[in-house]
């Protein structure tokens, strides 16, 4: 195992996975608390459609994925704000529509392109130095924004109407959160893939939710769990030659199941 860590590709994979694990699990706290679980899945599939279009047209995949991801969250947010449609309904429609677009773009490609499918299922072991740099820059931007606006993000997650009533620009902060979710999804595409990024946003935060009664502690725990599961998943996948995305997500799921079984909240309830 230690010998494997001396390879450049392995160090890159581990760094990429830990960065993605940290960013996904940090934003996941606000996604879980604000009840936006479905938005991660919708954005991931929209971003994948962007990747497919980029490969079809010869454009840069991450840039097009960001455009698709942002368009999806902003349209869904706008529809909810104007009272036209609930967020989960509009995301559901955009999710399926963009997935249909992705399949259409894949169908239009003359040959099988393994790289595109890498974005669907994740291939952390093939992350290049350039991709790692992009993940690091975008990841630090997301973490920086979460840190700077944490008090407002916590407030809208707890009670958006109350936040607005007490003078927090709640609407703008909500759109900031949607934007950060879209960027996080795109950052994570190459590492865990479009299908599993949703799990990396939800599972560590939901695990932390089981374990604490404090917002600050929930965030810290979520980031620690997400980072460790991502690193553990990469090591397991390389040791046993398993696909990396599923290894990360299944490890996180196992930790989640343990957290539910031993949750102080659950134990308190059964004692009550």
């Amino acid at each position, binding site marked *: 195992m230690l010998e494997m860590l001396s390879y450049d590709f392995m160090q890159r994979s581990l760094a990429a996975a830990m960065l993605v694990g940290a960013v996904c699990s940090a934003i996941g706290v606000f996604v879980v608390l604000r009840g936006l679980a479905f938005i991660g899945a919708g954005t991931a599939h929209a971003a994948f459609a962007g990747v497919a279009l980029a490969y079809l047209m010869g454009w840069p995949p991450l840039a097009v994925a960001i455009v698709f991801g942002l368009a999806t969250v902003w349209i869904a947010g706008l529809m909810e704000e104007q009272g036209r449609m609930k967020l989960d309904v509009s995301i559901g429609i955009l999710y399926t529509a963009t997935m249909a677009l992705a399949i259409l773009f894949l169908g239009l490609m003359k040959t099988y392109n393994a790289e595109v499918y890498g974005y669907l299922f994740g291939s952390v072991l093939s992350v290049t130095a350039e991709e790692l740099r992009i993940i690091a820059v975008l990841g630090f931007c997301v973490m920086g924004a979460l840190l700077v606006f944490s*008090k*407002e993000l*916590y*407030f809208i997650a*707890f009670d958006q109407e109350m936040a607005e009533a*007490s*003078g927090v620009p709640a609407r703008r902060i909500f759109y900031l959160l949607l934007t950060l979710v879209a960027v996080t999804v795109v950052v994570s595409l190459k590492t865990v893939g479009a299908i599993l990024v949703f799990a990396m946003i939800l599972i560590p935060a939901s695990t932390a*939710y089981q374990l604490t*009664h404090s917002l*600050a502690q929930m965030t810290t725990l979520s980031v620690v769990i997400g980072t460790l599961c991502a690193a553990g998943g990469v090591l397991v996948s390389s040791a046993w030659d398993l696909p990396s995305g599923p290894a990360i997500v299944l490890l996180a799921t196992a930790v989640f199941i343990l957290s539910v079984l031993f949750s102080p909240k659950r134990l308190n309830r059964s004692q009550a």
Partner: protein
Amino acid sequence: MAHPIIRFSHASFGFPGVVALEDITLEISEGEFVGVIGPNGSGKTTLCRAILGLMPPFAGGLQIFDCACQELRCHHRARIGYLPQKDALDRHFPITVLEAVMMGRYGALGLFTRPSKQDREIALHALENVGMQDHSKTALGHLSGGQQQRVFIARALAQQPQVLLLDEPTTGIDITTQASVLDLVQRLHRDMGLTVLLVTHDINMIRERVNRLVLLKTRLYAAGPPAEVLRPDILREVYGKDLVITEKDLIIVEDYHHHH
């Protein structure tokens, strides 16, 4: 008379096709304790949202702190401590009492400013004011309904507001606790000189505590000292057959008890 800080002049509010409040003319002066009463759907919560600047009038005008409500900025809103009508709280939402009260500071602090030690002290002092200082580290979900309302009042106080706007603060809590929450509000009004607007269904609970009552049913039916507003003829006109006045002058509004 003290300076009016909230001024409705022939103001109407609503959504497309629905008029929630019509032609309201009302002034609320600094330091007053005003109770807002009326049947279900009479526009009481709309009145709160209007005062918070979240719902501009489609006709007439509304001025808050000498500022048209359409121009109400975040720093104005931070001067109104608001306790919204609350659905049952998610018992497991991971937030401690102090974290919830600290949120009261966020609007006044503005973006990019981290809460300081002084903000923490203001939040702790607000908790002391509502008698919850020993629970600062407790999970909010572990408290009783009455204790949670005290914490939310502390959050409103942490804003260091001029106006306290309370929408049904006693709904969903037992009768003894209801009285203690209202005693607390009365004390805060008296000791801190806060202007208080309290929306409620329970006329009996507040009639002895307020300076003025405002009776709404889409329109403003009456506003004045409780004795002037709680006249059987006015109440019967607003509540209709739902109103029962007992021999001891207790007013029971059937409509409320049927729906809750």
